[in-house]
């Protein structure tokens, strides 16, 4: 039982963590919580299945195509749902605009793809039981993403520019950084990360339109637990959520597991409203 909790819990936790990173990546350069994050995960599964099972492409081609398509969707989101509302962030209109885009995608996928879950193929054919690839692929994808982002943010000029915009976009603009282009690039990056979550977790989640709202919701919890904008917090929060959820499934079962998850979530937020790894927001007085 313990092995099953660990395998499944870590796999789902890694998927939630990747969606949390997707939220954070979009938030960092725009200060917008884009509720398209879960839909990007759903698109990763659906496009992966489309390219591999219906078009017959090998995984090595299907993965970059999926990530590219999701990156493009990220850019479209920036143009359509984020840029028009940036001037009035305090009115939180982005909630409406990003939710509208998310619903639009959901409806299109439901009509053009299917409302029923569709199969997602085995990618490597490695492992069985608790070592099946469907369990460790999401964890590997999460680890690769975290390492890749660390490298990007610490070792590359573009990455440092991202960090500069995230910390103080006015100062970054004053220094001549192309803030708008960096924001577009961050939405493309977020699209690819979100789709990677759905692609790597496709064998667990299947290519299913209902995964969008599910990931939107459960992917937000690591962000809240780990602290907004904190990727390490999102990873730890995501893995903890996955493990706790799976343990609750074993101990309480069914819908009571969700009750246990949300009870813990509320308790954590009551104790640390800024998240377990976030700093309290400073306010100039």
């Amino acid at each position: 039982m313990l092995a099953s909790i660990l395998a499944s819990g870590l796999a789902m936790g890694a998927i939630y963590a990747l969606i949390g990173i997707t939220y954070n990546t979009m938030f960092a350069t725009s200060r917008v919580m884009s509720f398209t994050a879960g839909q990007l995960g759903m698109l990763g599964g659906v496009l992966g299945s489309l390219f591999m099972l219906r078009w017959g492409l090998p995984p090595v081609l299907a993965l970059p195509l999926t990530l590219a398509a999701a990156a493009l969707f990220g850019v479209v989101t920036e143009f359509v749902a984020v840029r028009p509302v940036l001037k009035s962030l305090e009115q939180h209109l982005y909630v409406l605009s990003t939710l509208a885009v998310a619903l639009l995608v959901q409806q299109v996928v439901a009509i053009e793809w299917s409302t029923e879950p569709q199969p997602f193929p085995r990618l490597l054919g490695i492992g069985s039981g608790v070592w099946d690839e469907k369990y460790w692929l999401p964890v590997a994808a999460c680890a690769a993403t975290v390492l890749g982002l660390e490298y990007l943010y610490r070792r590359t000029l573009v990455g440092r520019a991202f960090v500069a915009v995230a910390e103080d976009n006015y100062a970054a603009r004053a220094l001549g950084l192309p803030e708008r282009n960096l924001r577009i690039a961050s939405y493309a990056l977020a699209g690819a990360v979100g789709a990677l979550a759905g692609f790597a977790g496709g064998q667990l989640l299947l290519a299913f339109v209902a995964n969008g709202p599910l990931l939107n919701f459960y992917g937000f919890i690591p962000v809240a637990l780990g602290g907004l904008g904190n990727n390490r917090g999102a990873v730890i929060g995501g893995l903890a959520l996955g493990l706790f959820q799976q343990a609750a499934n074993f101990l309480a079962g069914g819908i009571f597991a969700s009750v246990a998850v949300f009870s813990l979530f509320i308790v954590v937020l009551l104790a640390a409203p800024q998240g377990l790894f976030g700093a309290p927001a400073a306010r100039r007085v």
Partner: protein
Amino acid sequence: MQITRRGLGLGVAGGAAALGLARPAIAQNEPIRFGWLASMTGPSSAPAIGFDRGVRFAAEAINAAGGVKGRRFEVITRDSQGEPTKAVNATQELISQSRVHAIWGPTNSGESLAVTAIMARAKMPNIHPCVVDSLIDPNRYPNAFRVAPSNGQWDDAVRRYATDVLKARKVAVFGDNTGYGVTAAKASSDAFKRENVEVVQLSNIDATQPDMTPDMLRARNAGAQAIVVWTVSTGMLARMLNTRAQMGWDVPFVGHPALSAGDIGGLLEKPENWRNVFCVGYRSCSYDSTGKLPARSQELVDRLQGKVNLNDSLLWWVACGVDAVNLVAKAVEATGSTASEAIIGHWNSLRKFPGYYGEYSFTPTQHNGYPGEDVVMSAANTGRNGAFALAPGYG
């Protein structure tokens, strides 16, 4: 010209007489308007698409044979998209604008719960295939007739098979977390308990839950000898069957017709994961041990050959659609009237109406017309031309 009181009186009397004579002539020639509330698009569209094939086939056959006493049979379809609010609007439009003579549908219980009272107020003759028991109540809804089994009849068939054929004395009952899943699983569990069968686990699972291992492990540890499932979620069912195989546990699955849905085949890790799975089926649409359908069903299949595709649908959906049209047509033919009282009165007198899907019987106090003994269990992995083989244990 001067209008006198006598002239006016004679004119009115003459006009009334003329209209009175003309009205039956119009009524006898106007088409029979058959309202069809179909969820043709949206998440629960598969059954409606199957029913629709039967409806169109039967209506075309009637019209090709000269109609019903010379009256054309006109199908007026409204797509409710699986949404109760749209079903309400469509029902009101069919009643007040299209002025249909009878309504077939809706085809899912959520929509039917929303429109049944509206049809009752309008005294609209209504036949539907929805399973929720409360939809049929001759006192509250004297206009509503069911031509498919109720959920209780499904439940009886599943329970009989689990206890009498599989000899299970300990069962685990699962439903999804929708309203249907919760109520169906609870009703099923209660019925098992009433027959002194131990329900070792009763769980409602989120249909999108990716891993079913926890729930299946608990069922195995509790000693379940059969798994009873009530959900339409093919993803949930396929995951449960895959988990059963991974656990190396050959416990039989018994339950909802969705266990035989074609989508499940694509989601299974191996085709053999579908063995030892038995779902609700119908004797009229089942192959016997020699691989043959009942004669009347075979006659329908032969008639449908080349005209209606059965490969991506279920035979009972198509057959039930044919029966719905014939029930209305025969009522008009027998009574010579499209008045709602005439149609409802005729249906109330039906004894073993020979439909393709079943032999329907109604009385003024019993509007569940489908024979319970014809609800059987099918082997879920034996689908062929929309029909399934009878599960082991049926003669």
